[in-house]
């Protein structure tokens, strides 16, 4: 898609002409023709269209001087289709504005409904999802009550919010009733089926154990490089203990942290979380990025039991055995070997880490040889995603950046700034990444102190756009106007009572290779990507096969699918397999 195209008209066509072709549990929805393929340097082009699209909510972030780490930790953003009209809507989490010890303004979260013409309308008040005056941190989206409507979990510094989608354009906060208010400095979260009983359980990461009084009283007391006083921590502050809750399948959760083997004995400063199958055994594992501590890799042992194996699996620390400052997390097949790799973003003067997975639960830090390490060393990095931005068939790496200390701007001798440009690392094949941010259009020249990042095709033109939250500023919406190859986007639908799509793995086979994606309730930095699964296809005009491995073990397949389409793969009720205590691997594919 090139700049200047009639995206509004295109978008309208894309969503309005469904041609349902039900075949073996799959429905094919025809959309517009694929974008032209393209190769060569300079094909990336991103433009910040947040203001003209109507996404303009100021996101607060404590005090200007960032006296406490809560002031600078930032917030998540989410793409979701809350009204199930087929268009991608946006949700922005907000915090508070402080002045010294005074609360100036309690920020309001924002829900933007996609009009389908490239613009959004603020429906926060009508939908009743403004955040109840809480200090919001992160967001997770999933249909926790299996009624067919996506619900929103907002993690908070304080009690969490669980916005149950009533299906009529409004939500109600049921966190108290559900038993997951869990007041603390909650950060990343994952709703996923931990025990194979087909309902969604909850893992909650926590950062620092502190009170609002301590936050309000905080003043910069830590010496930064001997030249400035900045916010203390995380060392000097006690880590918050992560929590795990099992769902009873009836809208209520019970804490089961210890019995599940998820006791946070190390009191790691937890941020980004993802639930994804890291050892290809069919069960969803947990990966937690910890700031200044070893990351956690909780391997799912079945029946709701986990075991922490990060230190010997190779993804807890860097190649030198040192813990880094984990912030955000991304996953995907970075090198095209068919196995899931992991990315964790880290502090400045340290590198974002790319861990190459072998599909058996072992990982190797390949940050240096992949080019990721060198490109990311000076940035302080947060939200991240592995996504195919140019539709060439491999996953590029996008990273949102921004320092936590505004004080760094007074000391240019250290080569850092508070507001930083985000990074686009192009995958040149085989997991070799090159920084092309400077050639990726004005959108990647924007400098903010960015945090949350969510990837999604909001304008339905077949390429992936980026929504990014910024401290003390409105979000950035980077519209992808790159010259891109062919594409296919798979939309998963589960009927009410049919279980969950969280954890479903979608694979497409083409030209002798297989590309795969997994549905999560969130990852990156406290954020949620497009629930629809996007595949860049390069010059291929279609794919030989699309296969969905649903979390309950059932399988839906479709063969010979043309490119340039939104393909809806619907889980039929009759696909459902009778419940079993640990049924993750018990279903025989039909």
């Amino acid at each position, binding site marked *: 898609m090139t700049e200047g195209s009639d995206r509004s008209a295109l978008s309208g066509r894309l969503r309005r002409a469904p041609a349902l072709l039900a075949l073996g549990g799959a429905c094919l929805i025809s959309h517009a023709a694929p974008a032209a393929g393209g190769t060569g340097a300079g094909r990336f082009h991103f433009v910040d269209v947040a203001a003209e699209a109507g996404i303009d909510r100021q996101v607060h972030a404590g005090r200007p001087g960032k006296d406490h780490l809560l002031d600078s930790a930032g917030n998540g953003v989410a793409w979701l289709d809350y009204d199930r009209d087929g268009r991608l809507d946006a949700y922005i989490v907000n915090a508070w504005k402080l002045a010294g010890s005074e609360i100036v303004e309690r920020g309001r979260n924002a829900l933007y409904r996609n009009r389908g013409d490239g613009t959004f309308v603020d429906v926060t008040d009508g939908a009743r999802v403004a955040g109840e005056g809480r200090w919001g941190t992160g967001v997770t989206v999933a249909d926790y009550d299996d009624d067919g409507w996506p619900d929103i979990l907002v993690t908070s510094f304080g009690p969490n919010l669980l916005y149950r989608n009533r299906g009529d354009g409004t939500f109600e906060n049921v966190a108290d009733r559900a038993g997951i208010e869990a007041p603390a400095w909650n950060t990343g979260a994952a709703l996923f089926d931990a025990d194979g009983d087909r309902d969604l359980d909850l893992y909650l990461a926590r950062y620092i154990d502190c009170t609002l009084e301590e936050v309000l009283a905080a003043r910069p007391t830590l010496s930064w490089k001997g030249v400035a006083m900045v916010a203390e921590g995380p*060392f*000097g*502050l*006690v*880590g918050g203990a992560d929590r795990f809750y099992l769902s009873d399948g009836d809208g209520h959760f019970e804490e089961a942290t210890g019995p599940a083997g998820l006791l*946070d*004995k*190390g*009191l*790691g400063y937890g941020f980004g979380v993802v639930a994804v199958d890291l050892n290809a055994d069919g069960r969803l594992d947990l990966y937690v990025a910890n700031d200044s*501590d*070893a990351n956690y890799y909780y391997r799912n042992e079945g029946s709701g039991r986990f075991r*922490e*194996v990060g*230190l*010997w*699996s*190779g993804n807890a*620390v860097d190649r*030198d*055995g*040192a*813990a880094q400052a984990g912030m955000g997390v991304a996953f995907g097949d970075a090198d095209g070997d068919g196995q899931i790799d992991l990315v964790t973003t880290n502090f400045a003067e340290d590198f974002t880490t790319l861990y190459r997975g072998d599909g*058996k639960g*072992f990982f190797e830090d390949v940050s240096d040889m992949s080019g990721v390490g060198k490109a990311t060393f000076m940035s302080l990095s947060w939200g991240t995603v592995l996504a195919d931005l140019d539709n060439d068939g491999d996953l590029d790496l996008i990273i949102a950046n921004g320092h936590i200390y505004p004080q760094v701007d007074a000391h240019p001798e250290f080569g850092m700034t508070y507001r930083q440009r985000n990074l686009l690392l192009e995958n040149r094949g085989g997991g070799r990444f090159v920084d092309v941010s400077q050639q990726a259009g004005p959108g990647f020249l924007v400098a903010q102190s960015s945090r949350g990042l969510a990837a999604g095709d909001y304008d339905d033109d077949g390429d992936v756009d980026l929504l990014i939250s910024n401290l003390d500023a409105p979000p950035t919406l980077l519209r992808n106007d790159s010259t891109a190859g062919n594409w296919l986007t798979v939309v998963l639908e589960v009927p009410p009572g049919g279980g969950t799509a969280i954890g479903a793995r979608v694979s497409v086979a083409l030209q002798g290779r297989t590309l795969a994606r997994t549905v999560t309730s969130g990852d990156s930095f406290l954020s949620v990507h497009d629930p629809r699964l996007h595949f860049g296809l390069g010059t291929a005009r279609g794919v030989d096969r699309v296969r969905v491995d649903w979390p309950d073990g059932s399988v839906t397949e479709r063969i010979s699918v043309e490119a340039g389409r939104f393909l809806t793969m619907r889980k039929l009720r009759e696909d459902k397999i009778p419940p079993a205590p640990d049924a993750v691997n018990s279903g025989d594919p039909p």
Partner: protein
Amino acid sequence: MKRHISPALLTMILMLALTSPGILATEHDTGTPAELVAAYDSLADSILAVKQTERHMVQSILATTFSHAQATLGAVQKKMAGGENAGAEIEKLADLVSQLGNEGDAAVAAIRKRLVEGGHHHNAQGEKDGIYDEGFVIVTRAARKALLASAGNIARMAASPNAEKLKAEWSAVATQYKSLVKGD
């Protein structure tokens, strides 16, 4: 070791100072009272002794972990010799070798973090020189890297055990361990 003297100890010192006849009798002497100097000197002995005690504590953690690992290795080898599946025990061995590299498990790491939070760095100069990671007492950065690599190599054998490779990997672990604790 915390940065601050405990309130009880401080109270004891003050009581000693206030009730000492020596202090009352030297009202024209501007130097620090000898009794307080002596008390502080004694306290310094205690502080330095505590630091040594900390080293012994971590050494005990390492020794216990190493012994546990040796026993686990024996169980692994017995199972392998009997043609049984030793995967679970091999992973347990990998856990223990990881703990050698980490000077204990995650709970110990949390204590280490608390000590660093309190301003205590057992090897402050070693940390500055890049020899030790923050808060580590005995395990150097290089040893930690090697032990974690060995743990990973051992864990990989859970799926396909190999007696010779396991023996070689354990030999590397044992050599590393003995090198760390020699002289203690």
